[in-house]
């Protein structure tokens, strides 16, 4: 009798185990499909946003820029004798220069040309020079080995680094920031290190109302990469970014 109880218990337990395993497997499969769809949707949204930015930046830089330069050239070629007219033309020329400068800045903020033309490292170096806070924050960008360009990912990496630099400038009170790149056949590694005051990462993630850290994580997720932040109050902050290749 005991043998029979044991056999039936074992059989029923096995059946129950099979049902539970199938149930959990099914939940995992459908949940992961849902997560994949969500990721694809976010990727499409960000891609269309970047494309729109690119289109506006190109229009501003390639169409409006030359047009305004031509207007200025035509204006300066007008020959006038009245000193008041000369003054007005000079003033207008100055305004046009200011418009061209502002327009270039807007175009750069939307999408730096250097990223496409000369690659990620150059674009980041140019960006750090562009922010014009060299006397506050000394930035050193370096690559341990050659970095293969990937237009699909470079824009996301650029935005993530941009966000880190903004955060460092705004909150870290750092004087030095090092941005290092290293690539092997499997992945691209980026190590960002500042000598600022550091912060409590968990607390910042919970209390953060801004989109900075979230947008950084979303962009890393799109690239199937990971970002890990290590910060100790008083000892600076390290950002470890891993992006798989291929």
């Amino acid at each position, binding site marked *: 009798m*005991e*043998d029979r*109880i*044991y056999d039936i*218990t074992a059989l029923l337990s096995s059946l129950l185990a099979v049902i539970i395993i199938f149930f959990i497997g099914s*939940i*995992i499969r459908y*949940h*992961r499909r849902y*997560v994949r769809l969500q*990721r694809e949707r976010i990727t499409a949204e960000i891609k269309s946003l970047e494309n729109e930015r690119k289109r506006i930046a190109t229009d501003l830089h390639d169409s409006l820029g030359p047009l305004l330069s031509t207007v200025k050239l035509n204006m300066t070629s007008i020959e006038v004798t009245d000193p008041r007219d000369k003054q007005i033309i000079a003033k207008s020329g100055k305004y046009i220069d200011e418009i061209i400068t502002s327009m270039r800045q807007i175009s750069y903020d939307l999408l730096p040309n250097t990223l496409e033309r000369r690659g990620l490292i150059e674009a980041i170096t140019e960006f750090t020079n562009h922010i014009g806070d060299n006397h506050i924050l000394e930035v050193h960008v370096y690559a*341990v080995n050659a970095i293969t360009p990937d237009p699909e990912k470079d824009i996301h990496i650029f935005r993530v680094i941009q966000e880190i630099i903004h955060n460092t400038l705004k909150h870290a009170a750092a004087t030095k920031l090092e941005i*290092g790149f*290293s690539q*092997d056949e499997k992945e691209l*590694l980026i*190590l960002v290190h500042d000598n600022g005051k550091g912060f409590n990462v*968990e607390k910042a993630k919970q209390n953060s109302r801004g989109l900075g850290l979230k947008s950084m994580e979303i962009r890393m*997720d799109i690239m*199937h990469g990971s970002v*890990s932040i*290590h910060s100790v109050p008083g000892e600076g902050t*390290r950002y*470890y970014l891993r992006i798989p290749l291929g």
Partner: protein
Amino acid sequence: MSNTVTQLLSFTIIFPMILGLIRMHRIRASYQPFLLLLLLALTSEVVSEVSIRLTKSNAITSNIYTLLEAVVILYLFYTWGFLKKRPRLMIFLAIIYCVVWAFENLYMGLLADGFSSYFVMLYSLVTVLLSINEINSLIAAFGGNLFRNAKFLICIGLIIMGVYSVITEGFMLIDPDNSRVSRNIFNLFAFINAFVNIVYAIAVWFIPVRDDYYFSKRFKA
């Protein structure tokens, strides 16, 4: 099944322990409590073996081990983040563990003469629930192959052991005279324990390397 086979199977804990010792300095700090858990299990097996040979009983070792194991598992979930975000739950569980253990072992006097079945059932159930919760959070956050994820494998191991512990302790309460059914369940437990130890060994192999260690190799910092 002979005692030798059971003993050999229970000592399979040595495999994840050896792997853990090899990788100890490279793995992330949040996995250190898991290595402590493995060390505790191995120590308990050795002490139990010696104790059985000397006093014919391993009750004291087993009862003390269950308390330490329960606390280390709680600490593991604390370092993984779930209990860190809920410190009150952590304190509540720790207090409940201590009270139930003390009641069974000290008040009821089972420390040297029996096994604290209710305490084992309690902490096994809590461990299973915490593991299920951790797996759910992993499914949403982790995009890679789950069977290559150390946290997932550890949680699967904890769930298997937890569920089986509840079953065996339940049978101990129903049938304390150690009938054939109970003995068979205990025999099967030895195999399940060995299987979980192999799962733990795979988990230790897949424990992620510390970021600073991994990056310093590539950046030569």
